């Protein structure tokens, strides 16, 4: 879409905040302010969301595969190469579920390979949190 979606949505948030908000009070002003903040989040997320999800899914998939190797489990397989956000997010959820189960197992396994894999999972999770950070977040 032209103009660029992030640009248009960001400007819409700006107008909502500077022009419309001044005309509102109380509850309605609060709703408008939150709406503007959400548009800012959309503007931030729009361009990079698919790339981030692909990056996360690739990293999580590799970690899950290492877990399957470690415990001689069947490979968990991968999702279809569908680049829609909804499909990538569904695959992300599937992999996060597998990661959750794998972490629980690794925590009870003191062997070095298990602990090494667990450490790498924590590193990957910290990276996803850094990548997903909302610009307006308190932390």
């Amino acid at each position, binding site marked *: 879409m032209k103009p660029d979606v992030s640009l248009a949505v960001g400007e819409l948030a700006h107008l909502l905040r500077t022009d419309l908000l001044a005309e509102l009070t*109380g*509850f309605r*002003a*609060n*709703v408008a302010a*939150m*709406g503007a*903040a*959400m548009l800012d*989040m959309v503007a931030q997320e729009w361009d990079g969301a698919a790339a981030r999800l692909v990056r996360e899914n690739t990293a999580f998939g590799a970690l899950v595969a290492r877990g399957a190797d470690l415990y001689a489990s069947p490979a968990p397989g991968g999702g279809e190469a569908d680049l829609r956000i909804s499909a990538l997010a569904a695959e992300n*959820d599937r992999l*996060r*579920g597998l*990661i*959750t189960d794998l*972490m*629980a197992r690794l*925590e009870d396994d003191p062997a070095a390979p298990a602990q090494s894999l667990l450490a790498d*999972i*924590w590193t990957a*999770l*910290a990276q996803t*949190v850094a990548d*997903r*950070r*909302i610009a*307006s*977040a*308190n*932390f």
Partner: protein
Amino acid sequence: MRDVTESLLQNYLAGKMPDWRDVAVTGLHRLPMGASRETFRCDLAYTDASGPQSLRVILRRDPPASNVDSDRRHEFEAYRAIYGHGIPVPKMILLEEDASHFDGAISLAEDLRGFHNSEYQFQDPAWADRLPHVAREMWTTMGRLAAVRVEDLDLSFTRPATRENTASQELEYWVANLDSHDIGPEPIIRAAIRQLRRWQPVAQKLALVHGDFRAGNFLYDDEGNLKAVLDWEMAHCGDPLEDLAWSITRVFSFGKNDLRSGLALREDAIRLWEEGSGMTVDPKALAWWELFICVKAQAIWNAAAHVWTSGQGREVIHAYAAWWLRNAQDKSALELMGKL
């Protein structure tokens, strides 16, 4: 769901209060307060045996779906329990649990006007020199709440607890809440839950825990004096360290810096709480409660998202809170587990 209107409230009160004549409700409007309940302000006038009366009133209504699993009676009874015990709170006026009147239970309470309750106002440079005083007011009040003897309070409205079981009980309560509002796997929070289940602290004493004591949930005047503590819908009997931990969680660092609740450094908040409570904080116990707060908070943010996802509600604040807070809560858990 019907709108709450002046005539609706006026007709209800005229029927509910037989000793009131010439009931008039004016100036009713919704306030931008909280994500879990609808809050309205109005003026109420009537005549009783003593003559003409006027009240400034806050009306809160339970919505069909909320991000907080509570109800009008719970908060109403929490306010009544602590009223008169040294913690400033508004006086409760009326509880109506029959949802047929307003399409949801309502409560009426005294409206303390002329004060502020904005967590964001503290980030205004004009308030910078008053922050130490506001911080002292907030955390010493929280400490005084911790020091109130539970034996002197009617806490029959809330789940019973012991010093030994409160940590485990609260954890399992919020895990169940998280489970019932599932919006997708949570590897970080699930790891936090496993860690928390391996050991739980014993409370130094039981207290009425407010459950949401932070900047934004108390009224203060222009000098920064705390005038009333609000929003008791998550109040329960438990370990008072829960309130301290909630108030210093990173997600409520409204200045986007190290000032907790946007007011004070973590160590200063703890010192003030100790001063108010007369207790000494056990660092290991507080660390447990801080990580617990990540589970509780994420359960609430997820419930906000779940309300939308399940189609139970479309309040903007629910979507906004989930978008804004969930990743920050994960980051907070990572920091507390030493994984950041």
